[in-house]
Structure formats: structure tokens, C-alpha cells
């Protein structure tokens, strides 16, 4: 690894106009010429990533060739739908709302999740809320072990370490949400002969923060190469509504509000960005730590976590594996 060197928090600065033009040209080529689809469906959550993707697609394909699909469910934050509509109105693109709660109820998503939580919190039931968390990198020197935070109807909360069965049960149940949303996106893609846009940023894509065949599925992923802080830079350039730009990134998956940091990344996203950048540029923990604002030992630990997440995400990224050989000239 490289030793010293002037690494600053500004290392991820980009020429937003140039990068926007480059992405827009690529979207146009991919959707219209390679995939030969007439436009793009974007699942819009009211967050920064999907807003930037919808805006880039609108620039690339035109207002009449982008559909903003809003898919709230029972546990969605109350402002997700409002911000999604605000984004569609600001871009002047068609917007369709599909409440996916009935599908999730039919699949017993909520029941299955609650049954899994009850494995470690037997009293969990009607009126309770929950979320899954990891400890912050800054608060622990141990392994990353998942816990569930439950809030009782009287507002009292407690945190309980999950058993493996409970963790897998909760995740398997809540993954219905991302998969149902993707199913709905492809429904509209079939209907309109559109392609489906994926909205992961670099942190999410690289480190496997997505559901296989859920939000991990898409026909193209136009911001998967951008660090989160670069997505914010592009958002400013694209004049995404301020309220969306200032909204804290959330998973919007659990009934208790949950940040991406506490569910997966274990560091604030701007620090996580720098750690991923440092890792990819072979910058030593000692050289990177001042820019991140944490100790070199903590950077070294995060490098280990990044390695572990990359290994764990190989399955998520893997396409269906064939046993026999096939000609690969379809594109």
C-alpha cells in the first residue's frame, strides 16, 4: 500500500457537467441501441439515488420516455411518496403509484417478519415496530453482529442480539419488498417496452447492499460507478429538489426508521466513501485516517470489513451459472 500522500475529503470531487454528459450519452446508447427499448422505468423512492437516476434518464431519453414508479408499502416513511411525487413533478415526467402492501400481505411478508422477530422478542406483536442494526465501526472492536431494535406500543425500545434463524427470517421476509417492487417495475417495462433502470450507487453495488433479484435486478445501472458523495454532487448539478438532497439516506424497509449506516455500512456514508476509495487506491490506513477523521486502526478494520463484504457479495452478483457452454453473441 502507498504510504503518505495528501489525501483529503475532496478526493472524490468530479466535473459534474462532464460526468453528467457522459452518463446521459451512455444511457441513450444502452437503452435505445443496445437493449432496443423505447424508454426507462425508474422505481422512485424519494431518495437521492433514484432521483438522480430518473433525472439522468429524462435528460437522456426525453420526458415522454421515462416512467417514475412510486411503490409505497405499509412501513414506508410518510414522506417517501410525497418526495417521489415532487421529483416526478420537477422533471415533468409521468408518475404512477402502486401500493404494494396488499401483495406483501398476500405473501405473508409482515407475518413472516413478525414470526422471525418473535424468536428473540416473544412479546413482539401488533403495535410494535422494529429495525435491524449493526454496531457502528466507531463503537466496537468486535465482529459485526446484527441486533433487532423493537419499539413497544408505549414507545419503549430495547435492543436484542439476533439468533441466526431470526436474522435470516427477518431478512428473507423483508426481501419480499424489493422483489415485489422489481416485479412491478418489469410489469410496466413489459407494458411500455421500456428498460428497467437500477439505482445503486458504488457503495451499494460494490459491497453487495442489495437484494438479489430485487433491487439488484435491472437492465442498466447508470450510477453504480459513483461514490455516494459524487451522487450528491451530480444531484446538485441536476437541481434535484433541495428537500430530497437533504433527506438522510434510509433503507425505508423497516417500520422503525433505519439509516443505511446502521443497517449495513457501519460508518457515515461520506466516511465510507473515503474508505472504499482508499482501499481501491491502495492508500495505507495511516495516510487515509486524517481525511476520514478516524483512527488508522479503524480504517484498517474497515478495509477488512470491505474485503469481507466483497466476498459475501459474490453470490449476489453471480449470474445464473450454466453447466454447458453457450455462444455469447446476443448483444
Amino acid at each position, binding site marked *: 500500500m502507498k504510504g503518505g500522500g495528501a489525501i483529503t475529503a475532496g478526493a472524490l470531487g468530479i466535473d459534474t457537467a462532464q460526468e453528467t454528459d457522459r452518463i446521459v450519452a451512455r444511457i441513450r446508447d444502452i437503452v435505445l441501441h443496445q437493449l432496443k427499448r423505447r424508454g426507462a422505468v425508474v422505481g422512485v423512492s424519494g431518495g437521492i439515488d433514484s432521483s438522480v437516476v430518473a433525472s439522468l434518464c429524462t435528460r437522456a431519453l426525453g420526458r415522454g420516455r421515462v416512467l417514475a414508479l412510486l411503490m409505497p408499502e405499509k412501513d414506508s416513511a410518510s414522506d417517501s411518496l410525497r418526495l417521489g411525487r415532487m421529483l416526478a413533478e420537477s422533471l415533468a415526467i409521468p408518475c404512477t403509484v402502486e401500493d404494494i402492501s396488499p401483495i406483501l400481505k398476500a405473501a405473508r411478508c409482515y407475518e413472516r417478519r413478525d414470526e422471525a422477530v418473535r424468536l428473540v422478542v416473544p412479546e413482539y406483536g401488533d403495535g410494535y415496530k422494529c429495525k435491524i442494526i*449493526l454496531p457502528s465501526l466507531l463503537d466496537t472492536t468486535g465482529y*459485526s*453482529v446484527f441486533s433487532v431494535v423493537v419499539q413497544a406500543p408505549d414507545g419503549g425500545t430495547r435492543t436484542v442480539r439476533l*439468533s*441466526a434463524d431470526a436474522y435470516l427470517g427477518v431478512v428473507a421476509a423483508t426481501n419480499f419488498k424489493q422483489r415485489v417492487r422489481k416485479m412491478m417495475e418489469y410489469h410496466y417495462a413489459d407494458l411500455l417496452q421500456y428498460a428497467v433502470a437500477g439505482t445503486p450507487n458504488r457503495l451499494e453495488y460494490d459491497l453487495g447492499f442489495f437484494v438479489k433479484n430485487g433491487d439488484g435486478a435491472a437492465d442498466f445501472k447508470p450510477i453504480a460507478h459513483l461514490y455516494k458523495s459524487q451522487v450528491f454532487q451530480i444531484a446538485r448539478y441536476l437541481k434535484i429538489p433541495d428537500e430530497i438532497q437533504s433527506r438522510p439516506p434510509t433503507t425505508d424497509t423497516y417500520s422503525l426508521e433505519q439509516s443505511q449506516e446502521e443497517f449495513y455500512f457501519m460508518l457515515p456514508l461520506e466516511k465510507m466513501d473515503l474508505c472504499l476509495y482508499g482501499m481501491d487506491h491502495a492508500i495505507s490506513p495511516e495516510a487515509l485516517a486524517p481525511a476520514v477523521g478516524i483512527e488508522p486502526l479503524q480504517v484498517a478494520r474497515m478495509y477488512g470489513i470491505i474485503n*469481507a463484504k466483497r*466476498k459475501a457479495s459474490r453470490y449476489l452478483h453471480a449470474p445464473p451459472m450454466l453447466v454447458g457452454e453457450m455462444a455469447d453473441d446476443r448483444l
Partner: protein
Amino acid sequence: MQTGITYMNTTQAAQEIRSFIEENYLYGCSDSLKDSDSFLDVGILDSTGILQLIEFLGERFRITVTDEEVTPQNLDSIDKIVVYLQRKGGIAAGGDGTADRTRGVEASS
């Protein structure tokens, strides 16, 4: 069926842990795993695997793994787990299975 108490020494404990790792994470490819190998370095255990390991240790050796003890220092290799179990009283402090037996585990038949 639980039929009684059997005492486990460090060698037996290491073999039990190896069997658990092999059955759940190595799928029969454990020849190259040394007792001193770091699970993190080899990439064996993910966050779910840690939870499963904690439960295995709790059930098989009748100990309670506290949140503070879930560290690589205690759990990152077969050797480290054996030392940890000795400290927790989950297995015999000695190595031959006859001396310093401090806790037992139930054997099944």
C-alpha cells in the same frame, strides 16, 4: 436423544468445532484449514455465520457468549475458540480429557 454427561478435552473440542465449520461452511473441503487459520482471512464466516457459531458454542458447550465476547480475539480460529472455551469453563482446562474437568456437555446417542 440426550442420555448423559460426557466430558470434552481440548482435542475433542477442536474436532467438534472443525466438524461444525466443515459441515456448515466448507462443505467437505476442510483439508487445508489449519486450527490456527483466521476465519476472517480465509473468508469462512460472514455475519450470519458468526451468529450460527455463537449458537453452536452456546448449545454444544453450554456457555453464554456475551456481546462483549464476540470478538476475533475469541472466535477467529479453532485454536482461539478452544482457548476461549477453556476460559469460559466450557471444556476441560487440561488437554487429555482426564484432568481439570470443569464442565461437561451432554452426549447424544
